[in-house]
């Protein structure tokens, strides 16, 4: 198991399109402790205590404990955990909406914790925009003025900001509702306004704090697709907080699983589902349809010489579910091909063992 899972070492992920660029956010040993004399906890003997003991001993709650990770440019970085796991506190620490207790935090190599008020304001205005669970819209302003609000704060002139806002409103599909008030919109529409407001300032990073938890399932699905579409179109870096595993798997390039303020596992959806770091994660991903997350890269076995050039070809990123379809159609094994090179083959047995959850043990045994 240890051969495939690399928890808490954030430097070996598979990152789409950008190999060498410096991380957008670089977080090291970040702590956030609430309570009396909170600054004494990190690094002290109490730091090792469990949440309950810590509270009993010191009256403090460690919402974020010793968290380190990097967010790479262009990726969707999902922080996932149950309520109380510290994920919302963590995302607020990124722009210091909540002041971290200790640790280092850099954006594009610049130390966020050392910023003065003006620099910090600049960071919030131009570099990182946030979308909130409960929208946080101004009820007395029209949709258009809400979207333009971030620009207004930056001091952009009325005509210019309204033009920009109108553009973004169209992008998120709210055309025709510009003059409504937030109170007249449905939840999904309100969150689109929230999204548009964040997009309007053209930030480097978008931070989402459980943006769709307050929406009903169908709307949630719509909004997730909206986010995927936006990510495809613009390639903007996103940090996405959620407590919904299926949402995390659908959106995330990488997922960081948190529990009691600490990281449990950090990896691609496939790593999380295929190689859970511990029983907690295993329990968590138990009901996930594995064939829809795991890929043939994981399911394949080395090809025998006569299999090298027969049968259908699949890309290594193909999900097992799609591979099953291909294999079932032809009846024989399918090749996994990357750039013309055959990496291996998948047949009925490989695919079924992934679906049955036997693959991890196989790897461990091997």
């Amino acid at each position, binding site marked *: 198991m240890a051969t495939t899972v690399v928890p808490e070492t954030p430097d070996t992920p598979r990152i789409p399109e950008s190999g060498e660029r410096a991380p957008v956010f670089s977080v090291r040993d970040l702590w956030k402790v609430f309570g*009396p004399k*909170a600054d004494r906890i990190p690094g002290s003997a109490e730091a090792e205590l469990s949440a309950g003991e810590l509270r009993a001993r010191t009256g403090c709650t460690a919402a974020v404990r010793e968290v380190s990770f990097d967010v790479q440019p262009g990726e969707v970085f999902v922080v996932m955990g149950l309520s109380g796991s510290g994920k919302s506190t963590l995302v607020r620490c990124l722009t210091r909406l909540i002041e971290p207790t200790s640790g280092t935090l850099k954006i594009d190599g610049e130390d966020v914790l050392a910023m003065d008020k003006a620099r910090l304001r600049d960071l919030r205005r131009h570099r990182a925009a946030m979308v909130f669970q409960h929208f946080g819209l101004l009820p007395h302003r029209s949709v258009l003025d809400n979207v333009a609000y971030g620009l207004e*704060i930056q001091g952009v002139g009325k005509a210019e900001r309204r033009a920009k806002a109108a553009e973004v409103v169209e992008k998120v599909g709210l055309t025709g509702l510009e003059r409504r008030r937030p109170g007249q919109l449905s939840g999904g529409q309100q969150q689109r306004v929230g999204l548009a*407001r964040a997009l309007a300032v053209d930030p480097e990073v978008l931070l989402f704090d459980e943006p769709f938890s307050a929406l009903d399932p169908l709307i949630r699905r719509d909004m997730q697709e909206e986010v995927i579409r936006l990510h495809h179109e613009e390639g903007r870096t996103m940090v996405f907080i959620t407590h919904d595993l299926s949402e995390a798997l659908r959106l995330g390039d990488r997922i960081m699983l948190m529990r009691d303020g600490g990281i449990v596992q950090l990896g691609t959806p496939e790593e999380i589902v295929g190689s859970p770091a511990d029983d907690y994660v295993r329990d968590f991903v138990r009901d996930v349809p594995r064939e829809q997350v795991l890929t043939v890269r994981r399911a394949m076995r080395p090809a025998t010489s006569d299999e090298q050039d027969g049968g259908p070809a699949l890309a290594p990123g193909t999900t097992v579910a799609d591979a099953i379809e291909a294999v079932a159609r032809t009846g024989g094994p399918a090749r996994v091909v990357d750039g013309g090179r055959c990496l291996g083959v998948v047949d009925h047995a490989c695919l079924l063992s992934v679906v049955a959850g036997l693959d991890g043990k196989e790897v461990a045994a091997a």
Partner: protein
Amino acid sequence: MSATTTRPSTDPATEPAAGGTAPDETRPSPLSAVVRSRAARKLAVLVVIAAVLVPLAHAKWASGSWPGALTVDVSEPLGKASDWIIDNRDSHWIFLYFFGHISNAVIICVRVVYVVLLTLGWAGVTAASTLLAWRVAGVRVAVTTLVSFAVCGLLGMWVPTMQTLALMAVAVTASVVIGGLLGLAGGLSERAFRALRPILDTMQVLPAFAYLLPVVLIFGIGVPGAVLATVIYAAPPMARLTALGLRGADAGVLEAVASLGATWRQRLLSARLPLARKELLLGVNQTIMMALSMAVIASVIGGGGLGDRVYQALSSVDVGKALAAGLPIVLLAVVMDRTTASAGERLGEPPAEDGHRLLRGWPAWAGVGVITVVVALIGRLAGSQTWPTGWAIPIEEPVNQFKDWMVDHLYTGVPVVGGTAEWASDYVKWILDPLREGLQGLPWYAVLLIVATLAWLIGTWATALTATAAMAAIGVLGVWEPSMDTLSQVLAAVFVTLVLGFAIGIAAARSTRLERLLRPVLDVCQTMPQFVYLIPVVALFGVGRAPAAAAAIVYALPAVIRITTQGLRNVDPAALESARSLGATQGQQLRQVQLPLARPALLLAVNQGVVLVLAVVIIGGLVGSGALGYDVVFGLAQGDLATGLVAGAAIVCLGLMLDRVTQPTSRRDRKGA
């Protein structure tokens, strides 16, 4: 920045607390049940205290009334102080350079507004008010405004109405500005809020009369004093609501605004204040209503205007004249309340899309201005600035004739029900007199003990201490007897108010039709200034303690009914439904579900009832109810400020005590108190 680390003030010294609880909590025994009951524990402590102190007090100062040995005669120093102020009013620097300037500024402001109103003329004022009401509150309120101003003119009260309006305009502006600034401080700073809150809370429960004397002491009788008393009385609700509105702003919105990089000022101007705009407008509404109420009462210290007419008429028991001046007050109250209230309701709605574009935005406001000027010019060209004398309809004579008829036919000898005068004398003879004798006969320490017990059972030891100290202060000031007199009037009136109020409230909560019938009546009643309630009761009951009680009951009843009805209606429908599903009868539902669950509301109703009744019982001093209210009026009329000030202080103490004794755990904002 919003991102400060939270540092609760508790010390981490409470280490093993988590481990040592709970094992013995599951063993029930009758004794431990008694010990565990908080009320029982409090009573036990009080019994112990009483057992020690009462014999001591009885041995040393045994008397029904407050012992003379324990009083401090403050009238002499107070008299000296007031003499000094009167002597130095024109020479000492603090008057010349501070109070003098305030006083002059107030006079100038009122004069300017009054001149503007006169220049506009009756036509201009009516047009301006009507158009203003139409712009901010809609057509219906505009029509009400038009009719109201016309009636003021028709009653021949145009000039006093304008005087009151001018005084109001200045006082309300000052109150809104001062209250708004205080509220801003309280809304933005935790420390300021904690300092302000108890003061504002207390100021809200004090009767208007208590504010008059200190102001008179410094500013003398006249318009400046009247305006300042009004400001002091009317600014607290503005401050309270501003602070509460700012603090109650949606934290999520504020966080979102901060996350976009807003500066402190941007956050205040673009988010916090707009988010609090409903509360701000409600604050303005309440300030206006309180200012009107006080501006009328301030006629006692030379405020002039409509209140003065009522005051003069009441002192000669001329009901016709009082009514002619009282009606405009009521109309002004209704117009102002409706205008500001509907403006508040409209705030939440999006701007109207319909209508011509000239009817929206600044063109409409410009139109209002132009029309007003044109109408004012036409009015001036056509005739007089004040209401044409020929158009007045005198109602004094017919009203007085009707009142004489009532005196002849309703006061006594009505078959079966008796007459109003008989009711009044019965009320005094069978309820007020025994109660007063009882309170005055009761040993003073017994009264203190009762107060302490009640306050402690309802609140905390701090409230008990405040209440007892306030009561003791009354004794120390040497006005125990009149205070007991006032207290007896309050208690009797509160009792009647609560019986009637709860009965009607319960009935209204059960019958939607009754509630719908009551609502407009309650609306009007709650907007009327306390002062005008004295007019009808004097007509019905003559002068004395009974009419004061009647006015107090009528004044307090709407609030009690409303709170009771709302409390019962707001009971969790799920709880009621489950009771019904178990087959509870209507009576069982009421007794076992609704009343217990509505207990906080009922307690609040009691508190409100007490506070409102006290306010009017004190004003009753103007129609012969005697006691503390009379002392204040007497002090003002005779220039004997020492007597008045002592009575005023006693009123403050009494108000404080009554509020603390009935104070429910959570307070609510209320109207017209």
